[in-house]
């Protein structure tokens, strides 16, 4: 059995199915031409280094300059840990358990905290289901398998949820009157 499975791996960097980073999302959108965005996404992919540098600067600026509570700092850290690297497997999302537990540590739940918890809960749901309707290569069904090179719901939805978290944290922090650290 060992011999049969050796050599099974390889090229996992191209496995869109398991890649929940920003790059995975962009390649998935390009692959499926979701919402007719292929052209725009191709431009972003061609300038990906620039995008990552800008995103990293935004991350550092947000963490240093904006008034965030501890759970939000860890939440934002986990978001950028997931988004910035080229290939993010789903187990990297275990970092979101840290802000989740920090939120649970508090005695009361604000609406904002419940919003964070809800988005983290959506991140934790399994989403390895095919996105495509092409019946020849991969079927849009739980009961049938599809290629690892094809995008899944995870490769689209998880990065989107992480971006959403970053936007919510950034927006609410900007609207806060004064530092609370």
């Amino acid at each position, binding site marked *: 059995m060992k011999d049969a499975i050796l050599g099974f791996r390889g090229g996992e960097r191209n496995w869109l199915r398991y890649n929940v980073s920003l790059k995975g999302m962009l390649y998935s959108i390009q692959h499926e031409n979701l919402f007719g965005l292929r052209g725009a996404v191709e431009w972003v992919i061609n300038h990906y280094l620039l995008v990552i540098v800008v995103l990293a600067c935004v991350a550092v600026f947000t963490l240093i300059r904006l008034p965030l509570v501890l759970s939000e700092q860890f939440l934002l850290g986990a978001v950028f840990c997931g988004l910035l690297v080229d290939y993010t497997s789903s187990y990297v999302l275990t*970092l979101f358990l840290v802000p989740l537990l920090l939120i649970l540590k508090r005695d009361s739940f604000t609406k904002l905290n419940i919003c964070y918890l809800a988005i983290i809960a959506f991140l*934790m*749901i399994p989403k390895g289901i095919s996105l495509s309707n092409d019946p020849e290569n991969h079927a849009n069904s739980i009961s049938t398998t599809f290629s690892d090179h094809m995008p899944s719901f995870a490769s689209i939805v998880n990065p989107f949820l992480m971006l959403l978290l970053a936007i919510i944290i950034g927006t609410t922090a900007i609207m806060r009157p004064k530092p609370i650290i």
Partner: protein
Amino acid sequence: MAIIFLNCCQENKDATKNIDASRLPNRSLQLYLALYSGLGVIAIWSIFLISEYWHIDSIGKILSFYPSDAPGSVAITCIPDPIGLHYFGDFVSVVCHSNLGSPYLDTSTNYFPVAYLLMKIFYPLMHASLWIGIGFFYSMGALSLIYLLNKLLKSSMGVFEIGTVLFIVVGTAQPVISLIDRGNLQMIVTLLVLFSALEMSKTSEGNRYDALAIGIATALKGYPLIFAFRYLAAREYKRFFLTVFCGSIYASCTYEF
């Protein structure tokens, strides 16, 4: 579900404090939710394991990767016999590489040098049996998680609630299932980040173990460095530089071993 449960716990705590008899039935609701969620955990794990062993490929892969994926870039003699179908590929890969003379010069490795230094202790255990190696690895992880959860949450929750949080929140999360299936080093990274969060949440100035933990996590995977930028926000420059120093020293000095 977890939020409803914790709200119930909170209400129940308030009810106990105020000796309000009308709220006491919440305990039954708590137990019901705990039981319901516990069955959910068992159901998810059962579906995962059954689908893997019956080769119902798509269901197992919704939750994780191929369980039968052995590390491809290590000597075949190093790979132990699997547990059922499971090779715990990432664990076996790092441990096998850690026993090489110069694992850091091997282009097929994915980790920083300190990963191999840390995981070298598991080699004799894994060499005896994968059961022992992986069991020891997970036992250390589970005990650390229980300890950290207890430290972090004991001020706001009881033992029952903490146990339920551990069971519901950690036990049902797909990333955790995937992490256990792969035996990835991310478990150590997450625990180190959790430890630093625990230290940072303390109000007193205290020690600098949090910066040390983030530094080791950075040396293991690189990207946890981003958590160190909060020190700059809090004007704790010594901690920031301690993290960067630890990250770089651990990642580079282990080349010497």
